């Protein structure tokens, strides 16, 4: 029994086990990635929209058996990390020889932390998209945050080509005072584990309009602008379609006008549009609403990512990088006592494996 357990421990902690698992991981990922691309060239773009766990829960079952290789990849990843962990523990317990091998130990530790951070981020992370016009504030789905766009400037080259954007943003978290920041390419707005990226899509378009009510008057609806009505009701903007845009039967340009009660519950809604064949007036909970002049402004669509594991990943990355520097120093002979050309014998291999 003892011998069997020792043999099992030797197999589990052997670098060869890790290598075999690595090869299987590489083959699975390599073949799977190529097959997935040929099946759907947009496969990876779609996959990047979700945190990994959410993709596994919502998309992978729908695309089975094409997604089988991802399930295999997950199993192999866990096995590989378990092998690496046991290897590292075994190495630490048996081969503590001062600073010799510290570089390798740090590389392994860093990698384990990166994997742990990735698992946490995949399990708890959020990826959302928010479209905002200048001055508008909206909730970020899946978070307790709301985002406000204060300004959006397009940075242009000397010949007028758009190069970049600079967004001034405000993030609100339940009752706290807002955090202000900017987002531009390679310089997102980072707040703890939440990152707001510069807009992938921006432009100049309809951001609201004047809506006439009968009985009542005319109101300007837009980002952060609603109109109080009699009976504790509020008229607000529920959505916008730009010229030519379609959603179901609705065609742009037009506004989705909603009536809410004091608690924010939607009582009724109507879509008013200038597009041919669409209605410019409608009945909204007994009030006649008419589409007036549409207002235009600059808007942007922002990606908001929250990754709770990112600081563990960054810590792991720093440790891993330090490990490589130390290993390199040893390899170049800058660390006393480290021999860079030690080819081991079978006996030494066996000893190391336990």
């Amino acid at each position, binding site marked *: 029994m003892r011998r069997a357990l020792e043999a099992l421990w030797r197999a589990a902690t052997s*670098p*060869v086990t*890790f*290598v075999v698992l*690595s*090869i299987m*991981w*590489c083959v699975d*990922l*390599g073949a799977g*990635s*190529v097959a997935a*691309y040929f099946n759907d*060239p947009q496969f*990876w773009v779609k*996959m*990047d929209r979700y945190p990994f766990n959410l993709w596994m829960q919502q998309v992978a079952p729908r695309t089975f058996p094409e997604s089988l290789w991802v399930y295999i990849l997950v199993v192999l990843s866990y096995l590989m990390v378990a092998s690496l962990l046991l290897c590292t523990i075994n190495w630490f317990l048996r081969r503590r020889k001062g600073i010799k091998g510290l570089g390798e130990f740090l*590389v392994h530790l860093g990698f384990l932390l990166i994997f742990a951070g*990735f698992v946490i981020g995949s399990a708890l992370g959020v*990826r959302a998209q928010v479209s905002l016009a200048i001055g508008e504030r909206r909730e970020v789905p899946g978070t307790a945050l709301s985002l406000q766009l204060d300004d959006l400037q397009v*940075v242009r080259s000397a010949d007028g080509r758009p*190069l*970049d954007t600079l967004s001034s943003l405000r993030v609100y978290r339940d009752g706290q005072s807002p955090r202000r920041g900017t987002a*531009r*390419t*390679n*310089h*997102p707005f980072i707040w703890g584990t939440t*990152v707001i*990226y510069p807009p992938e899509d921006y432009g100049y378009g309809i951001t609201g309009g004047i809506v006439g009510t009968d009985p009542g008057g005319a109101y300007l609806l837009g980002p952060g602008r609603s109109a109080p009505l009699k009976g504790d009701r509020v008229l607000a903007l529920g959505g916008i379609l730009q010229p030519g845009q379609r959603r179901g039967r609705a065609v742009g340009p037009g506004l989705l006008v909603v009536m809410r009660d004091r608690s924010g519950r939607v009582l009724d809604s109507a879509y008013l549009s200038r597009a041919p064949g669409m209605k410019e007036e409608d009945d909204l909970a007994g009030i006649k609403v008419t589409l007036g002049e549409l207002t235009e402004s600059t808007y942007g669509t922002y*990606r908001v*990512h929250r*990754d709770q594991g*990112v600081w563990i*990943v960054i810590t792991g*990355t720093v440790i*891993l*990088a330090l490990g*490589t520097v130390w*290993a*390199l120093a040893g*390899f170049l002979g800058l660390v006393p006592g480290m021999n*860079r*050309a*030690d*080819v*081991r*014998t*079978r006996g030494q*291999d066996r000893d190391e494996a336990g």
Partner: protein
Amino acid sequence: MEATSSALHMSSLAFYGLSLVVYSLSRAVRGLPQKVAVWPALAGLFCQLVLLVLRWRAGNHLPVTGLFETQHFLALWVVMTGLYFSVRYWAYNFLPAAVGLAMAALIFASRGPKAVTPLTPAIDTPLFLIHIATSFAAYGLFGIAALVALFRLIGISGSPVNAEQRMLDESIYLGYILFTWAMIAGSLWAYLAWGSYWTWRIKGLWSWILWFYYSGVLHVRKRSGWQARPLDLLAIAGYALVLFTYLGLGLLFKTSHPLL
């Protein structure tokens, strides 16, 4: 700058070609030592260094953007390593192979535009420059490792002091460390620019495959059962993987890392 770049590019190619000619002559003419081939190789290297320094000054950024510059950077590392091995391990027999690989990279570089262009905001970050510089340096070293392995496999003595094992070891080890830095810089850049340090894009995935592959090679490279032939085959297969990750993906797929 384009004319200067072309002139220096052609000069470096010519000097490397001369190095191959001199080496061939040294094999045929008694009294002409093989190490004479080092001098034209050094002249080619000097031309490349001048080219890259001038482009650095003209563009005001590390010259590692576009096919022309990246291939020059790769060739630079290949020749530097070949010269280092020649001087350190008397591996003058190996130098022509390294110079040949560098020439292949430079001929491929000729396909790329030679104009110095300003960095777009997306790549105007030190992380991009570190990512590309270390990637191509690593590619060069993995190429050298494959050449050393090939020499060993077909039984050509690359070094009279039997340092082939050490040459192979050094190229893979240093290449792996540089590639690790490339992956770290690339991941951080991806996090800041695109929203995640891990993206499910084919180029990134194959880069991880490459990293894991060489991690495996490093784990077995000193184990008794993996010495000699298995390690040589691993080094050659590794470079095939490098070529596929760099060229194959760029040519066959629409990737986030276009080739040209």
